[in-house]
């Protein structure tokens, strides 16, 4: 369902080159909850961004269903990203001037306005945030913000959710809620690839991959 082939990526700046992905292959199937582990700087975030169509790898291809993300124009890739991929970040990255509900409505979507509003309300209700819908992120706790961020990632019912250390800033209870949400999503056929330093999510994962020296390992 999601295939990454021979992914290589090299970060370049004025003084040096760092090759962080080195001919990496990855396949993810529907309903899979995959944990991605590795030391800081090993390239986990780079891989997630490359799989999400946000970072064109130096070499290789990323396929979601029948679509090769990087053979698409930037506009088509943006549309594919909206349709097929959800992102969850450690720092939540909610738009600070929008309310929780508006953050969900900020997702690019083909739905009409009433349908979008109904979808936002449904998602917020599912995570127990109906009464917080009109609060801005600054007025929400870290756990609530991350629940909003997960709802946003799930808004278009995407094929793949890429989660970059989503529980890193959360207390254990809030982390458990977020992991529950992602687990429910995979139970409905979605795919989660979660970068993490923590061992806790592994208990939910169908498999764990280690990123070392630019390639993936099972142990």
């Amino acid at each position, binding site marked *: 369902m999601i295939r990454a082939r021979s992914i290589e990526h090299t970060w370049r700046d004025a003084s040096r080159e760092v090759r962080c992905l080195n001919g990496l292959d990855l396949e993810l199937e529907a309903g899979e909850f995959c944990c991605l582990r590795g030391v*800081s700087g090993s390239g*986990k*975030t*780079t891989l*997630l*961004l490359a799989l*999400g169509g*946000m*970072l064109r790898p130096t070499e290789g291809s990323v396929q979601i269903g029948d679509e090769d993300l990087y053979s698409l124009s*930037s*506009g088509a890739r*943006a*549309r594919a*990203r*909206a*349709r097929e991929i959800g*992102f969850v*970040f*450690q*720092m939540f*990255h909610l*738009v*600070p*001037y*929008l309310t929780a509900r*508006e953050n969900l*409505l*900020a*997702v*690019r979507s083909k739905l009409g306005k009433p349908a979008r509003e109904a979808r936002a309300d449904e998602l917020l209700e599912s995570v127990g945030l109906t009464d917080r819908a009109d609060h*801005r992120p600054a007025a929400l706790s870290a756990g609530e913000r991350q629940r909003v961020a997960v709802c*946003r990632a799930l808004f278009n019912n995407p094929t793949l959710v890429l989660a*970059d*250390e989503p529980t*890193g800033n959360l207390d254990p209870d809030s982390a458990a809620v977020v992991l529950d949400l992602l687990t429910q999503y995979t139970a409905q056929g979605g795919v989660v690839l979660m*970068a*993490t*330093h923590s061992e806790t999510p592994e208990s939910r994962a169908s498999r764990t991959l280690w990123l070392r020296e630019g390639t993936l390992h099972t142990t």
Partner: protein
Amino acid sequence: MSVLYQIYAEATHRWVHSLLLFGALFIAAALPVAFHTTGSAAKRETSRLMRDLGYNVRILPKDAELSSYWAQGFADGALPEEAVQRFKTADDLSYNHLLAMLAGRVEFRGASVLLTGLTAEVAPQTKKKGSMIFEVEPGTVHLGHAVAKGATAGEEIELSGLKLTVAAVLSEAGTIDDTRAWVHLSDAQKILAMPAVVNEIQALECYCADPGVDNLERLREELETIVPEGQVLRMDAAAEVREKQRRLSEEYFELLLPWILAACAGVVALLTAINVRERRAEIGILRALGHGSGRIASLFLLKAAGFGIDAALFGFAAGSWLALEFGPAVFPVTAGKIVVEWSLFSYALIGLPLFAAFSALPSTLAAVFQDPAETLREEGP
């Protein structure tokens, strides 16, 4: 979510930034409006003063002796009557309010009268304005104060054998005009037996905005192409002093305005750059949410343009108020002429949003070309 709502939400959230942006654009609207409003009043005042001082250009036959002209009050020689009509079709002239005249001495009730025949004023096609002088109907005469000799309006008199009805006796002017008997050109041509000719064309010199140009030289050059059989005299007058004063104030505004606008553009550009910098993560996440470059660009350009519209509305009102309130103190001569310049409103309403958008353009491009992966990676584990 609509772009406009997102812009509104962001603008109210970062209200200090919004206030500064509005302030810079408000100044960019208000000061030019205030300057232009008072400047236009000064221009109208100059025109009025120059008109009040009368025709200040004389076109005489080329061979006319000037000493004789000043001594007798009319020029020897003649110009074809149709010469004045040639100005009608000419463009971009320094002449306006052209008045063809035929003057000569006649006797009336024992005194020498300066018989002056005239027709309606002629104006170049792009400068049509109301006449500066009364019109005389054929068969009538307007008598100067010094030559009326008891004649009254409605009375029939005879001038060198031609019977004319007195249309008016003019009030005392204290000039040579007091000795004139104004008749229609055709009547003067009959009395003086000079058919189809004139011996003087009076005119008003238009204001010349270019201080580097010798006005008299320009008048002569223009006349050479239109009426080569004529020569031109220009009356130096108080209007020139007024013209110079206005030119001085215009130059002052012209010097100041570009700096004000450049400063405002700089502030708008800086504020947009700060805004883009503050919103790097937001731009990254909007990309991740599937939004393209158009959406990102419109968030900044439409915001700047929207503030430009608001600032144009308030800036126009404030600039007009400034001109009306403080203009009379700064320009006492033109105080009565300062009025709201509504023509500036549309310029402000169209120009300021464009000005704001152009000022915000460099930072907007930086936002569009920002690599979202860079921003989002900075936050990664």
